[in-house]
């Protein structure tokens, strides 16, 4: 992407002119990668979080629930749920209120799961960062496959009649204090809104940025110090077992999607097949043991196992598919 050309020039200026590092040396290449990626991802993060703040304001979870609860689109509601899961930002610490709120409002369990599966799988990073990192084709393929996995997973959960594994006693809440728009009666001016989006977005950027720096540092180490022939020998294999291995290795790790991307970018740069690298990243981002423990409070282990099983199989399928087409 050409719009990032100036960052590359800046990174090279700092690395090779100011720091006097040798072009082609391990330290030089790693530093160059680090400066370039920190600036590029940092800037993209600011933009993404601003956009996400706007989305959250005009399209809060309450509206998602309303749309899903009101309309029965006979099969299409799975697609709708997966699509909404993709565009709305989601934080795993909100998964319980979300789950209870959806199922309690009469949204079928399968549709709720289509949303829950697609939400971390297709996320702001895959939608907005991938085009700048891996190009349009990979972006479209990845997100399309993510939506398909979510739809099929939701349908499977419906088919299996998994409703019996939900802890019913948690769904009996009558709403007490309905949300009232705090701005009711007084119009929020456009400039106040813009300021609010900015401060909300920057709050998240500040939270995530340290992890992005760690991710980029890891990526820089891989980029600069892992010798190409070593990587070629061990990592670039297209053997069938590499995708499951990458998924299993990524599963116990948990990190924000934006911070994992530089690591993946470096791996792909070393010749790791893109599908394998994507499977690794998606497993890190999607399969979260803390989230599992939280969800355990509202569902029995059978349903939880089903949820994790579907996600794991889905990630592997996505990895094979991307490897096959690239």
């Amino acid at each position: 992407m050409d719009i990032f050309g100036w960052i590359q020039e800046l990174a090279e200026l700092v690395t090779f002119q100011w720091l006097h590092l040798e072009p082609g040396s391990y330290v030089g290449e790693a530093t160059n990668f680090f400066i370039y990626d920190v600036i590029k991802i940092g800037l993209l993060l600011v933009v993404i979080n601003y956009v996400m703040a706007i989305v959250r304001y005009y399209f809060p979870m309450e509206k998602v629930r309303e749309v899903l609860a009101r309309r029965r689109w006979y099969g299409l509601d799975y697609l709708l749920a997966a699509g909404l899961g993709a565009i709305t930002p989601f934080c795993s610490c909100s998964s319980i209120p979300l789950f209870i709120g959806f199922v309690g409002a009469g949204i079928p369990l399968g549709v709720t799961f289509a949303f829950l599966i697609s939400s971390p799988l297709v996320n702001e990073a895959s939608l907005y960062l991938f085009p700048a990192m891996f190009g349009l084709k990979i972006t479209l393929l990845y997100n399309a496959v993510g939506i398909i996995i979510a739809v099929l997973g939701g349908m499977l959960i419906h088919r299996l009649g998994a409703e019996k594994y939900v802890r019913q006693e948690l769904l009996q809440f009558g709403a007490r204090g309905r949300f009232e728009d705090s701005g009711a009666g007084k119009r929020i001016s456009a400039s106040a809104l813009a300021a609010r989006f900015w401060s909300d977005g920057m709050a998240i950027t500040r939270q995530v940025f340290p992890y992005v720096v760690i991710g980029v540092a890891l990526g820089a180490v891989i980029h600069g110090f892992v010798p190409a022939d070593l990587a070629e020998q061990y990592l670039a294999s297209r053997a069938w077992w590499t995708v499951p291995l990458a998924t299993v290795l990524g599963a116990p790790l948990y990190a924000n999607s934006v911070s994992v991307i530089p690591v993946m970018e470096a791996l792909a740069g070393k010749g790791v097949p893109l599908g394998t690298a994507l499977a690794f990243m998606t497993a890190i981002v999607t399969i979260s043991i803390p989230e599992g423990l939280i969800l355990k409070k509202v569902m029995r282990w059978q349903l939880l196992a089903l949820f994790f099983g579907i996600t794991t199989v889905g990630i592997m399928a996505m990895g094979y598919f991307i490897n096959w087409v690239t």
Partner: protein
Amino acid sequence: MLTIKVLGSGCPNCKKLEAAAKQAIEGTGVKAEVVKVTDYAEIMKYDILSTPGLVVNEKVVSYGRIPAVSEISSWLADAELKAA
């Protein structure tokens, strides 16, 4: 006396919201007590879908984000006017 509830299971964002609420109380000088609600059964009674949530005198004023201290201050002022 206002009752302010911070709804959330104890995630880092809930703690930040609590701190912001306390700051707003100090800044505006209103009399208020801050209650932390961590039990999901209690939280769900307010029908919010994302945490942390902020409740002023049983009215949900925000959820799913950490509002600025100035925003919280204006909600406190509103609630004081209503209560008076």
